[in-house]
């Protein structure tokens, strides 16, 4: 029986495993050093906030694994010997495979600041990070102040977490609004205001210089590039993530930022595949970055690779881009491509609408020449994935999307509708242009 070994029990590895099991009787082993069972990484924050317990963020009951003959091994893979198809564990022992799937995800990306080794400096990516935060910032007596470096999805999550325990949060953001490298300016500014309204000391145009420690090796403060010292007990490093591939250093698997793969998700070594955050496409797909560190893309790679492994070769061929997040109370969804100022394509124009409440807004991007609908960002209004996916495939026009926006609404029943208001704003704007 062919033995499939998967390193990593995140969404990519588990999706691949589930689909391989559905399609075949192969022996499947899943190795993880992080956690006994698959959990939802995006839900880590809710455990610290007291919304859920650890077991609540595990999507499958413990009996699921045995029932589906998915063998779990808790170990850290130290070396990958592709010549002998063998993995060696740090704890000792080894395992052989017929096919290897590497799905080891990401680790926190840092920029070599001084003081990264101090106690209290941490990211928020893994189960261990969550445990560390619980230790470093259990309450505002032990940890009255914190600093978060970097304004992105993980940064705002961490800010929300710490605020639930009334810990002061200073957030250092290099740009002049929150997450401007992904969002159009008006939206970034709206989010900045919202984050501040939750008591976060959001510092724009502010960069970390170094982290200062005390005599016990604990964090004492950070120093910004402006020379300001901000005292704190915890420093959250949330300046992005990078592929978790350091264990492949001495292997023959070809890597760059991530593990290099082709569209079949194959590495340079036969029978070795890589999926999820740790994989890097040799040729970027459409507008997508070569390394996609997103829950959904990890899942899609797992879905595609399982078919290939079970004898039905399928390329990783993602459809229209989509993503979602929540910033404190404001939900965010995006379908298609809406680019930030810095990344905007020269053919891209945008229509913005913002609600008077400052809690809802949409941005629709379209092609300057032919008005083709290219994508939408929606904040505070839920929209239907299926509808936008269809409109993008059908290459609908901006007009069409605005006029039919109601079809895409996914807010709960009885919620106030904003389509009319949006349409009026659109008409008025068109007149001006």
């Amino acid at each position, binding site marked *: 029986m062919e033995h499939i070994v998967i390193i990593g029990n995140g969404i990519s590895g588990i999706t691949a495993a589930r689909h391989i099991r559905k399609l075949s009787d192969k022996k499947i082993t899943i190795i993880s050093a992080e956690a006994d069972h698959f959990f939802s990484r995006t839900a880590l924050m809710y455990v610290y906030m007291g919304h859920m317990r650890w077991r609540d963020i595990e999507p499958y009951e413990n009996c699921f694994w045995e029932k589906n003959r998915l063998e779990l091994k808790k170990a850290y893979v130290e070396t990958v010997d592709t010549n002998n198809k063998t993995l060696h564990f740090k704890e000792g022992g080894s395992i052989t495979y017929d096919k290897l799937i590497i799905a080891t995800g990401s680790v926190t990306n840092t920029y070599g600041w001084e003081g990264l080794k101090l106690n209290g400096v941490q990211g928020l990516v893994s189960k261990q990070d969550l445990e560390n935060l619980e230790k470093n910032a259990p309450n505002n007596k032990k940890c009255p102040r914190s600093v978060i470096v970097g304004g992105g999805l993980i940064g705002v999550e961490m800010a929300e977490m710490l605020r639930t325990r009334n810990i002061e949060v200073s957030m250092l953001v290099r740009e002049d609004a929150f997450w401007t490298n992904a969002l159009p300016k008006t939206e970034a500014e709206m989010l900045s205001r919202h984050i501040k309204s939750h008591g976060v000391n959001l510092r724009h145009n502010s960069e970390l210089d170094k982290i200062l420690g005390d005599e016990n090796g604990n964090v004492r403060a950070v120093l910004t590039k402006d020379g300001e010292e901000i005292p704190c007990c915890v420093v959250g490093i949330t300046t992005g993530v990078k592929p978790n591939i350091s264990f492949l250093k001495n292997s023959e698997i070809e890597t760059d930022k991530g593990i290099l793969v082709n569209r079949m998700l194959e590495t340079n070594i036969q029978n070795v595949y890589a999926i999820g955050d740790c994989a890097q496409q040799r040729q970027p797909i459409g507008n997508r970055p070569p390394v996609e560190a997103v829950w959904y893309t990890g899942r899609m790679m797992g*879905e595609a690779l399982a078919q290939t492994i079970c004898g039905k070769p399928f390329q990783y061929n993602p459809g229209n881009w989509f993503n979602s997040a929540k910033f404190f109370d404001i939900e965010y969804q995006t379908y298609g491509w809406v680019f930030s100022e810095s990344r905007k394509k020269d053919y891209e124009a945008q229509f913005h609408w913002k609600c008077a409440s400052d809690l809802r807004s949409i941005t629709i991007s379209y092609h300057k020449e032919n008005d083709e609908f290219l994508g939408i960002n929606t904040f505070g209004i839920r929209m239907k994935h299926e509808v936008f996916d269809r409109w993008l495939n059908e290459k609908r026009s901006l007009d069409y999307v605005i006029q039919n926006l109601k079809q895409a609404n996914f807010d709960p029943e009885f919620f*106030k509708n904003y389509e009319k208001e949006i349409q009026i704003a659109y008409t008025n704007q068109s007149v001006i242009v």
Partner: protein
Amino acid sequence: MSTVQRNMSLTGKPPKTINIQQKIASALGLLGLLLLFLALFNLNFPNKSVWLSASLVMIAAGTIWFAAAAYIDKHEGIKNDGVYFKSLSSRGFWAWILGITITLFYVVLYWFPQYLGLVKDGDNTGIVALFDPLSKFLNGGPASQWFLYGTLYTIAILAFGIKFILKYRHNKYEKLRTFSVMFFQLGFAFLIPELMQRLNSESFKLPYYDLKNIWPLNYYNFEQYRVNEFISAGDIGLGLLLFGVASIFIITPILTYKYGKRWYCSWVCGCGGLAETAGDPFRHLSDKRQIAWKVERWVIHSVLVFVVLMTTAVVHSYLGNDSSKYWLNKDVFLISVAAFLTLIFAGVWIFKREELQKDARIGSIAYFVIILSLIGLHFASGKTLFLVNAENLRQSYGFLIGAVFSGVIGVGFYPIFGSRVWCRFGCPMAAILGFQQRLFSRFRITTNGGQCISCGNCSTYCEMGIDVRAYAQKGENIVRSSCVGCGICSAVCPRGVLKLENGPLEKRIDSNEILLGNDLDLMNYVNGK
């Protein structure tokens, strides 16, 4: 039902950080409760109506003030911070204290009302006596333990309803739903039946009737004394009796087809009303494991069979034998029941067989065969219907299900098993509506494409213990008998994945192996479209 919990924080901060306003509000509410306790221990208040009003106002005002102080100055949005850190909402010390207190209250209420001061012949004493003025004001007579219970129950739904509205003030569905349960409790369950008692005289008597309390939740609606009272009360009585029957066979099926069982369970019902308001802080305690779901299906449907047998036996016992006197005699009734059950059984097996799980098939056949053979046995050998005396059946149902299950376990164990234990495992009304919702209703919870991140908020905060995430992460709509449509899964979802909807029956469930967002060819290939 609880009136104790206002002294504990149920909001985003651990108890030690409750603010000064909340402390004063707690003190106020506790003072109101203290007055009731003093009455319970036979302190004889001189001016009962003043003291009772003072007590009830203080309890309600304390609760509402506490909630306002907790929520008003916070952003609109989800308020689940620290739920699992607080003793009261995470099965800690205070949860057990509260659970035991409510349970004791129910035990006394059901079986030892004399300790509350109920006096059968003569003037009430104790806490029941304190409620005499209000009872006299509403229905003209002295209070009973049930009047006391009804009053406290209504106040709990109103006060905690306002708390719930403040908590979910960003969510119009939740606000409307809560207004609705508050309205039905105050009007239909409390004021109307009490005022109807005033119509009664020597020659005219209506049974105490909460119009929205439908058989089989209202398992005693067709007992002999009630039916006699209905019939002897002329057109009004007959009208009410017919309304009771129409509620079962016409009104509820239509509404459930159109809106799902939520129209009743989380918009109208009193049990649901309490669970959604006072029980809200405990909703996450429901058991989400598969095994719990299995137990649920057997237990709730067994209760349904029990209530059908019991009611059939009771009605059968007081009907006449002679068809020339009245068309509905013992035999006609029994044959109609058998025919109706056969019709439903056959209909489901012919049209919906594919949707029945293995245990549903075994259960339905077994129960059907048992009921019909018992009816057959009665006709063939003249043995007592269902082999047990109707009165014994009635009494054991009233004790086991009516009192122990719905009251003591259903509400007393809120802080331990969650707020919907009765609705999920016991309520035969929920079983009927759920059966219809699962097989024949436009209601579903729609999943939004491939947006689920499996975080688990939906499953955690489902009071019915449905593993909502298991469906959402497969891109599958949620169509479950037990779903009461409270809408909280949709509210707590951080990615806008879930929406309660009424829509066409086609493609109501629609499961996907490969989720939206991936390669179209792959989706079509694997999902078989």
